[in-house]
């Protein structure tokens, strides 16, 4: 099979200046498990575009680093 990488607009935006390296609150609560840490920076980001825009990640972030947008196709 031949694969191509496509760019997509993802709903979860992380403000890296506020994201804490040792905190995993958003990653732990995401029902779809789409958030991970960038191993180089220690900051969280949305790795998989599989979002229910349900908001636990945003609500449970202790530093308000996360903004969840309605996914582009629904917005």
């Amino acid at each position, binding site marked *: *099979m*031949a*694969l191509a990488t496509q760019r997509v607009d993802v709903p979860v935006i992380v403000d890296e200046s506020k994201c804490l390296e040792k905190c995993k609150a958003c990653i*732990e*609560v*995401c*029902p*779809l*498990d789409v958030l991970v840490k960038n191993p180089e920076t220690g900051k969280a980001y949305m*790795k*998989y575009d*599989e*979002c*229910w*825009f*349900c*908001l*636990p990640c945003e609500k*449970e972030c202790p530093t308000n680093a996360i903004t*969840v*947008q*309605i*996914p582009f*196709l*629904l*917005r």
Partner: protein
Amino acid sequence: MNTQHLQTDFLVIGGGTAGTMAGIKAKQANPDADVLILEKANIRRSGAIAMGMDGVNTAVIPGNSTPEQYVREITIANDGVLEQKNVYQTGRWGFEVIQELESWGVKFQKDHEGNYDLKQVHRVGKYVLPMPEGKDLKKILARQVKRHKVRVTNRVMATRVMVKDGRAIGAVGFDVRKGDFVVIQAKAVVLCTGACGRLGLPASGYLYGTYENPTNAGDGYSMAYHAGAELTNIECFQINPLIKDYNGPACAYVASPFGAYTANAEGNRFISCDYWSGQMMLETWKELNSGKGPVHLKMYHLDDDTISEIERVLWANERPSRERFHEGRGEDYRTDGVEMNISEIGLCSGHSASGVWVNDKAETTVPGLYAAGDMASVPHNYMIGAFVSGRLSGINAMDYVEGLEHVEPDPEFLATEKARIYAPLDRPDGVPHTQVEYKLRRYVNDYLQPPKSPTKMDIGLAAFERYHETLDLMGAQDPHELMRCMEVHFIRDCAEMAARASLYRKESRWGLYHYRLDYPEKNNEEWFCHANLKKSETGEMEMFKRPVSPYMVEVNLQQEVYDVAVR
């Protein structure tokens, strides 16, 4: 690949509404027993009520209604085909559930005198109890799970129930982060994995823009089927009237007690009752196709304070991102109607009637295997019904496991299942799960979305059968993608069940849920029965009739026809 071996007395698959309650009740029944909740997400925020719930839809509170009245209303709303004794349990135990939740800190709306402030949304009777502060429901349940010393394993997804000598002996699955193969021996198992919310494709085209939490991919429907359990009335689809594009509730259950209602483009009522039923959905479908659409939830005739009150509830609970959806489009309930549309199809007993066949003890037809919540066949059960069925499964399973020993799993079964699960990892450059899922669910829309046509359903069924070959092309690059791949397997099973069941029942029933163009009328003579299915000895999906048990609450269905059309 590492293998983890676990043992427990009672395995709860799915830690949502029903699952957390099943675990808690099992421990209350026998504190010495070992109870394990297996959850593919994290029980703190998982399942249908991940962000709480804005109200109870099936509250039978003494002094307001009786279980018998409730059974009667649901019997009529569900066109008579149901097991009344199952529905009765929801009416019988719901009040105790509400009281227990209250003792744990869950708040329900009360009037100035401290009485439960019940609202009427159903055609007859007050069963809706608002929960304006219901947002932390799941966190409260997770805390009680811990207090009751129920063990929890998060981020492990079950793929099959293990069955030996005709009884459930555990389950297998894998760690969706580390990839470990997980084998769990249990003396009893309850499946409570929610709806099949990823069956049809949303009109937006976004795979996860579903009404149900998209983690609920029909896992339990598929696992019960492969375990040999019977499923019932799968043709009674879940179809909801939802905010167009957003695909979440508008939500008439919250807003209609304040005076809001569903209206056509002219602002006029076309249904007399906003309670979700197949007949209500059929009227909505007719209105949308009459030239008087689109339909909308109308609130703009209400005063500012009332609308603020409605917003306060809707912006905080269940689907709080509704607020930013409207904001992004510059919509305000004070001036704009909420444009609504008919959702894609799903399977969910909580809202309609399809599910794994259970009795009033939450037992499936496989000994040691229970089912609860949205996937168990108790019509119109909603959240309180999920709590009640979880409770029943926990208590009854504790009786069942008494004196039982663990059974060694069959090595051949384990090897076969392990090979099935991990196959996509051997094809990292295989077709991505997103594309495989998209096409499968588009077929579901093309061929199964009501109104149902026999030839279309035949074509769909053939496509779903052929889709086994497509599943074999799917590739995964990590355990996370593997989780999505195995969910596509669940969705395919549900699509085949939905097609076969819809072809089998040669009549129309439940309004739009099972509206057949070739048999547009209800046929009580031949089809006043359940349409059940199961995996035959030879591995074929077989359909058969099951009689409706004699009613415990008398209802004259000739006179009591569910009709909410405004003419």
